[in-house]
């Protein structure tokens, strides 16, 4: 069978500013990030022949063909589910390139996540008739369980029950991301420091989770350009080779969009465990080979679960591992070096892809010295995707 190892690379990255109120349309944001990524790659819009989008995006492929002038697009696709998509989107680009359907693919995510359509909010559904038609919301929302933050609070509580994890353990993840954001001028939290005392006394949202366990809400966009490694070698930046990429569900993922994942037998092992196995096999690598990681962090607990699922520590030991300095620059596995969703901005996993490329180029605002491999992960719990970038 074909092997995609190191056959494609990310050659261009682009972002907008990350704000609470962009004052721009999601199409303008996507166009800004897309144009920046194409320019960064040293290419012209007409070199782009493929576009991959997240299925949650309000911007369609033809919108960008029109606004960017990518007149030669012959391939497009949409990837889900939501935050699980970004690394899978890169996988789509690799598949398109290796099958000859495209040579140079733009992947993007754009949202007015604060001023426009806000995620994590309930109340859109008619109170007269909740659920049905394959949503299974009728088993959750009538009980006041409506949003991912409440679901992840129950997952965090279960991790505390099974393994003795504490709020201080989760807090160490929030503080790590904030410290990286404090070094990143484009982070929403660039100028806002966070202490453990502030974390522990943060406003309770859905206990045991408090304010600083939650990601930010952001207006902004990110885009990257993927091409074959041969072409990548002739472009301005050091290519971030896509060593391997993988998508995966849990073996028994449950039905519906998000909330039914709470009905799985284990809440403390997530689809990231299944994807880790596939990804490391495809890469011929293990966690010991990873220099730096960008973990999808919609909540602090999301990172803790992935530290275990991707094998950086044993199941159940994520709390002490995180709070023992392992996540710092110079630690065993520095994470979320741009600040992540918790403190840079929430671009639904695509800012993690961009930051992974920066680490391979050596241009991060929190550069890990000599980093040659970066793990990038996308969202849980529905399903997930991940990739390993190499120099």
């Amino acid at each position, binding site marked *: 069978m074909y092997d995609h190892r190191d056959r494609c690379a990310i050659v261009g990255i682009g972002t907008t500013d990350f704000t609470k109120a962009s004052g721009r349309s999601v199409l303008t944001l996507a166009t800004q990030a897309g144009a920046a990524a194409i320019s960064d790659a040293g290419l012209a819009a007409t070199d782009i022949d493929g576009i991959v989008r997240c299925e949650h995006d309000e911007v369609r492929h033809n919108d960008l063909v029109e606004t960017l002038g990518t007149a030669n697009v012959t391939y497009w696709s949409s990837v889900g589910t939501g935050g699980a998509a970004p690394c899978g989107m890169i996988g789509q680009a690799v598949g398109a390139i290796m099958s000859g359907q495209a040579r140079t693919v733009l992947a993007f995510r754009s949202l007015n996540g604060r001023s426009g359509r806000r995620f994590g*909010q*309930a*109340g859109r559904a008619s*109170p*007269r*008739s*909740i*659920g*049905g*038609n394959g949503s*299974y*919301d*009728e*088993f*959750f*929302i*009538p*009980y*006041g*369980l*409506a*949003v991912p933050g*409440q679901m992840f*609070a*129950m*997952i965090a*509580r*279960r991790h505390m*029950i099974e393994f003795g994890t504490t709020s201080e353990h989760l807090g160490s993840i929030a503080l790590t991301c904030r410290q990286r954001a404090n070094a990143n001028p484009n982070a929403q939290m660039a100028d806002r420091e966070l202490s453990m005392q502030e974390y522990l006394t943060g*406003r*309770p*949202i*859905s*206990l*045991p*989770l408090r304010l600083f366990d939650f990601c930010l809400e952001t207006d902004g966009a990110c885009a990257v350009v993927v091409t074959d490694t041969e072409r990548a070698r002739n472009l301005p930046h050091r290519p971030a080779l896509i060593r391997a990429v993988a998508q995966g569900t849990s073996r028994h993922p*449950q*039905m*519906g969009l998000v909330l*039914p994942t*709470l*009905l*799985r*037998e284990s*809440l403390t092992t997530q689809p990231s465990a299944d994807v880790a196995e596939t990804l490391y096999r495809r890469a011929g690598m293990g966690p010991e080979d990873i220099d730096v990681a960008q973990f999808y962090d919609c909540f602090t607990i999301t990172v803790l679960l992935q530290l275990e699922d991707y094998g950086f520590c044993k199941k159940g030991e994520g709390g002490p591992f995180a709070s023992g300095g392992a996540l710092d620059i110079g630690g065993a596995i520095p994470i979320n070096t741009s600040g992540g969703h918790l403190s840079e901005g929430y671009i639904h996993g695509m800012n993690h892809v961009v930051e992974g490329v920066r680490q391979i180029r050596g241009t991060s605002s929190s550069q890990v010295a000599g980093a040659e491999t970066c793990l990038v992960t996308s969202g849980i719990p529905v399903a997930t995707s991940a990739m390993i970038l190499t120099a």
Partner: protein
Amino acid sequence: MPYTIDADTAGFFEAAREGHLVVRSCSDCGANLHPPRQYCRHCGGWNTRWRKLTGRATLVTWTIVEQQMLPTFEVPYTVVLVEPDDAPGVRFVGSLPGRVESLQAGMAMAVTFETVGDGVVLPQWSPTE
């Protein structure tokens, strides 16, 4: 108010209206299939039915909700997740008013039935002590 006329899930709410807690189960191999579906992935059969449960369960996890997200749910309230004693691997959600500080993982829970509207009944879960 839950949607109670879905082709796959309506039977759960019909049973609750009559004061029964049920789970979709395979008549051939006994597997529990929740949320309810028609096909049994365990044995490949379509011979599934509603099975009555005793309504005894243990507490798996919970959250105390402090920030209001739904207009009809005043905070604080406590959402619980339970595993029925006679349907291992199945999980049901319930909610209790206020901050229930006495919850412990593994504690015994029992079903109650709450009428939430015109002929609509929700199974709910409370600690037995």
